[in-house]
């Protein structure tokens, strides 16, 4: 009996934009100046919002905040490749992706400030709420992709997850369902190297996260996650495939969490500052800026104007969030069921009487 090779898979990595701002023209996706400037604007919005939220947290005006600094290119590259009818199923760090997909900034901020209305997105917004139990969103994303396929919608469910969260069973169950049912789903891992204090080497013994897709019967690809063009190009292809019935893809975007895990964390306890410094050299925003400068589209004046504009947008979001009236106590009870059962009605009245006293 011969020994036969019955399966071989090759996992590729895509890079387009180098840290010095030059691109591989052969791999460069079709993007005009306006599109590139929009990507830059969104990335800058993400960074500006992040810095502001951290400041607010320190001042006691914001709850725990999960920083996205360093990961702007993954989020923006992905949402830039989405169409109107596509669904976003975020993890918990996808602030700018959520905003671009229609979640008002003040709503998102309210969520992190500890207000339930922060998950009440405007009607029609095709964005799932933040799932705090990590990985639990992957089966949902598979389900959304199955739903789109069953209804014949030419749309894709785009799901995010962190590298550490790929260890959860739900990651695997979601991908398996998506593979079996050829769901219109694309899974994006933001591999930022860390899960709080635990490095990727403690999450998997495989060389890449991308290659895990092959075990579920669909392709995986790795991209430079600090390269917005590589993310965009990989997403564009994968989304198109999923929309047209070609099935799921797993995209591993290799990036880095530049900040603490959240404002409740102190990364200096477990991370080598040299590692952080080396990733600063690969900053996704600097890289895109160099590209735009190289094309003659950008200079210091434009940069300064863009920063001012981003700061204004963020200030307005914050002002609107701060202006929200507190919720009445009854709201604790009002959304448990479509119709409030009697026992909750009683408890709500009990609380109202107490508050009036």
């Amino acid at each position, binding site marked *: 009996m011969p020994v036969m090779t019955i399966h071989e898979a090759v996992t590729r990595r895509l890079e387009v934009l180098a840290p010095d701002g030059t691109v591989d023209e052969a791999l460069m996706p079709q993007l005009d100046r306006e599109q590139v400037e929009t990507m830059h604007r969104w990335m800058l919005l993400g960074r500006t919002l992040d810095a502001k939220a951290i400041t607010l947290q320190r001042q006691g005006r914001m*709850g*725990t905040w999960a920083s996205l600094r360093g990961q702007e290119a993954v989020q923006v590259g992905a949402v830039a490749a989405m169409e109107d009818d596509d669904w976003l199923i975020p993890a918990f760090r996808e602030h700018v992706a959520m905003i671009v997909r229609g979640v008002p900034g003040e709503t998102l901020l309210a969520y992190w400030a500890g207000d339930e209305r922060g998950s009440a997105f405007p009607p029609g917004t095709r964005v799932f709420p933040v799932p705090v*139990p990590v990985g639990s969103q992957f089966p949902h994303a598979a389900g959304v992709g199955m739903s789109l396929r069953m209804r014949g919608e030419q749309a894709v469910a785009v799901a995010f997850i962190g590298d*550490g969260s790929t260890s959860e069973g*739900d990651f695997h169950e979601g991908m398996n369902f998506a593979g079996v049912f050829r769901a219109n789903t694309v899974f994006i891992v933001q591999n930022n190297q860390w899960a*709080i204090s635990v490095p990727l080497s*403690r999450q998997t013994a495989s060389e890449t996260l991308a290659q895990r897709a092959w075990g579920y019967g669909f392709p995986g690809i790795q991209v430079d996650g600090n390269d917005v063009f590589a993310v965009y190009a990989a997403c564009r292809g994968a989304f198109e495939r999923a929309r047209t019935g070609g099935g799921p893809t797993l995209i591993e975007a290799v990036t880095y969490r530049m900040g603490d895990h959240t404002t409740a964390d102190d990364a200096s306890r477990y991370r080598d500052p040299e590692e952080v410094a080396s990733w600063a050299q690969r900053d996704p925003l600097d890289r895109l800026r160099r590209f735009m400068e190289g094309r003659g589209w950008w200079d210091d004046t434009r940069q300064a104007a863009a920063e001012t504009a981003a700061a204004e947008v963020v200030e307005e979001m914050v002002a609107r969030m701060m202006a929200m009236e507190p919720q009445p106590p009854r709201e604790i009870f009002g959304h448990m069921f479509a119709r409030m059962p009697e026992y*909750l009605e009683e408890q709500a009245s009990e609380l109202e009487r107490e508050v009036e006293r």
Partner: protein
Amino acid sequence: MSTTTAVETTVAETRRETSRRTLVQAVRDAMAEAMRRDPSVLVMGEDVGPNGGVFRATEGLYEEFGPERVIDTPLAESGIVGTAIGMAMTGWRPVVEIQFMGFVYPAINQILAHAARMRNRTRGRFGVPMVIRMPYGGGIHAPEHHSESYEALFVHSPGIKVVVPSTPADAKGLLLEAIFDDDPVLFLEPKRIYRSSRDEVPEGSHRVPIGPARLARKGRDVTLIAWGAMVPQALAAAELLARDGVEAEVLDLRTLDPMDRGAIVESVGRTGRAVVVHEAPRQAGVGAEISALIMERCLLQLLAPVRRVTGFDTVMPLARMERLYLPHRDRIVAAVRETLEF
């Protein structure tokens, strides 16, 4: 009918050095002490290694005992508990940390389907000497799923002990006892009072038995029954009531399974009134069990119906409204007055 009296204070086995520790430090000390005494004790969980746990409950253990015994695991609660069961059945005493009670759900299959049933399933051949530690409860302005108090799920389920300390000394004594127990113990840590006070905690091997309640305050008019972070609220209520001459007894249950039924019956039998306080939702909460027990065993001594001061039957609100949800001193006082005026 046998009755026991709750242990009045936590006493060290022998007169010994003490040091002032917070509850979370006492938890840490218990693990360090157990690991020094017994090489089969090991710690597993997310971020328990160099980071020392997100609440610093394992601080310094990695440095003292090394990566073989203080194991940062992949981010997978079912995996953590499941592997710990395998290890516990083959000679280890794993102390597992679940980062927050709200993240235990993926592990419930392993806890209830296996850890809690293995001894019975194998007719006593295998036990699962494992501790599953987890911070629980609200009041720290954390995001969703970081404030859960779902002890009733586990008290309801046969085969697993449930321990909830409310003082640093008890945290150390009960955790040491839990680690050397031959059955699985769920150890719930009231994170809201992790650092709220310091106590004299005996150095070395301080043990507090699993089972007996603690008489936190003596009284004759009403019995307040509480555990975890609700004990300080009950004590504050008792303090306030005392100003009006109402003497409330406060029972800190410390262990919810097995529960000190004798102490509850003895106390309520004397006072004739009971108010149960828990921050978990009311419906089918542990308060319901206690209330049924009192009905069954103290009916003729009761002067008023048992009152429950609990969380509401809703999702725990996010930070901005959690204050409205959590039971507090004044709510307890109001309930006591209702039982007095009944």
